[in-house]
């Protein structure tokens, strides 16, 4: 999998490159809009990460050019502009996703993977499983080691989201956005409380705990505590 990164902030670019390489991607970085556009048009990439304010050529113009040339490269826009209008503008110009700076790497990774899945037309599975846990997406039931676990609808959605991103940290913000569709932090420990309730239902009484807290970042579904 090859990622194209067009970003002029060296610190952010290094941060993304390091993370993506660790996650097993190969990544090309350009800090100039025109050079980046040239690379996007001439070489094969699976996904592009694009900053909006760039020297050479701005991000929206790059998007316009890419879509004119009928390049169906999936693009994630990175921007410090955060209003709904900015988001809509970005998506109208042909962006596939919009991520606001500052962001956590795990969030970027999750979005990249989701775009890749979409681009590869992966057939949506009817069930998801991780370790000894199985989610039936049609019947909306959860079974762990043969034991049926009763979950509320939102708890099910939360677990589904975590299992889809198994092994990657999901932040509180991501959970709020993907599970509850709120793009703000409603305060109070609403997410923490949900997670601990979920834990109680599906980790309690089992040998291996699956939900782990990563301090300062969020939560991750994984097998062992390393």
């Amino acid at each position, binding site marked *: 999998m090859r990622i194209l990164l067009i970003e002029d902030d060296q610190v952010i670019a290094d941060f993304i490159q390091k993370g993506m390489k660790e996650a097993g991607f190969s990544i090309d970085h350009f800090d100039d809009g025109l050079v980046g556009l040239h690379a996007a048009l001439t070489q094969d990439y699976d996904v592009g990460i694009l900053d909006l304010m760039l020297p050479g050529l701005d991000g929206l113009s790059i998007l316009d050019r890419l879509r004119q040339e009928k390049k169906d490269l999936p693009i994630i826009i990175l921007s410090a502009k*955060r209003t*709904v209008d900015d988001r809509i503008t970005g998506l109208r110009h042909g962006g596939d996703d919009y991520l606001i700076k500052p962001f956590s790497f795990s969030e970027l990774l999750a979005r990249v993977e989701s775009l890749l899945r979409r681009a590869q037309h992966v057939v949506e599975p009817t069930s998801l499983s991780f370790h000894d846990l199985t989610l039936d997406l049609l019947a909306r039931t959860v079974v762990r080691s043969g034991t049926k676990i009763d979950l509320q609808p*939102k708890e099910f959605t939360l677990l589904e989201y975590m299992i889809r991103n198994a092994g990657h940290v999901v932040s509180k913000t991501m959970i709020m956005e993907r599970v509850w569709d709120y793009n*703000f932090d409603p*305060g109070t420990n609403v997410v923490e409380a949900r997670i601990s*309730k979920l834990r109680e239902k599906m980790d309690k009484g089992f040998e291996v705990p699956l939900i782990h807290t990563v301090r*300062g970042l969020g939560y991750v579904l994984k097998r062992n505590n390393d």
Partner: protein
Amino acid sequence: MFSRGTMIKLPNTLGFRLTFWYASAFLVCLVAALLALFIYLDTILNNRMDEDLREDIAEFQELLTEGGRNKVISEIKREINSSDESEVFLRLLDGHGKVVFSSDVSEWEGLDAATTLIVPKDTVPSLPVLETVEFPNQEYPARIVLGKIGPDIILQIGETLEKKEEIMELLFMVFAGMVFLGIPLASGVGWLIARKAVSGIEEVSRAAKDIERGHLDRQVTVKAQEEEIQTLMDTFNAMAARIRSLVHEMRDMTDNIAHDLRSPLARIRAMSEAALSENDSTKGYKNAAMDTIKECDRLMHLINTTLDMAEVDAGVTHTKKERVNLSQLLADLCELFEAAAEEKHITLKVTLEPNCHIVGDKHHLQRMVANLLDNAMKYTTSEGQVSIELARFPHGFCLTIADTGLGIPLSDQDRIFDRFFRCDHSRSLDGCGLGLSFARSVARAHGGDITVTSESSKGSIFTSTFPIASPAK
């Protein structure tokens, strides 16, 4: 060839246009009135002359019956002697148009050829023939009457129109003078009226220019007599006041934000410095990094909330207003807080009137209610209760969120909606002091408001109203 240089470019100002149109309208009316008067006078004078001529015929007819032809002739002679032969002539004709007796008609060239000489057979004596004839040797035309005054005796009287025409000419001169004088007069009056109308606009324009130069306290103080101009001035003043208050608020906000930004920055700096001075402790570094992320998130939250609130307050949010089901929105939020409440052993009592719709910004409303719920949860101790109630009123909805928490001291109740204000007992808790002011901004942006009643250590009740906009608005 057409020369573009000769085209006159008229000034495009409102003042000039008003003056021009006023003057034009005035002149058109004046000319029309004078013309009507002129035609009316002309007709009256003509009628009077005809009347006189008819009377003359009638008199001579009487004279003929009384004293015969000789009496008529002597009367004609008398008449001729008393007037100028170039002004009047009298002739007697027989039934075939042959002149029997005549005054001196040398001044009336071609008289026989120009006039009717035979009275139509069927004409009764009392119906004389009247005509206006021009003579080559006379300056003015004449009015001529031909009437039968007896059997076979026809009288023809001609009289010049000189006097009448002279009166009309004089009248024309007077009227033309009036029009000529009217042009500057109308323009002057028009200009004065235009000045008066435009002066208000100019004052507003000057005030706007002053404000643009930075004099934000500038107001339009002049009073206008015209309602429209006064409305413009009032609207302008209201607008200027709004800008002023926004700028002041922004200034205060900036001060507060700068202050609130410093604290997390100071913490980040301190943590990083402490981590650096530690001796190769990976765990220490990790902790410092985690704390830094936490502080960054807090900073982001502060910045975002501030921006959102500025947006709501300025009313510049471009988000399309949509129909929002308040009941559903509240139910979803209560569901979200449910687990957290359970964990803290707080009872959530939810009473929602179903299908309460308002038009508004869904995301802002969500945050507003989330802020209120968050507050209620924060200040309610274990085993307490938070009740959420949505009720319908004739002109809107009322949302009550009551808690059995710490309550707010009376002295603070007025200020809790102010930006960055935090009660003493809230300082130890998470938050940036913007939650309630955001809630109030959103409530007001939706035409409602939010109030609080609270009793120390018994709890607080936050009441928000959401009026349904009348269709006219």
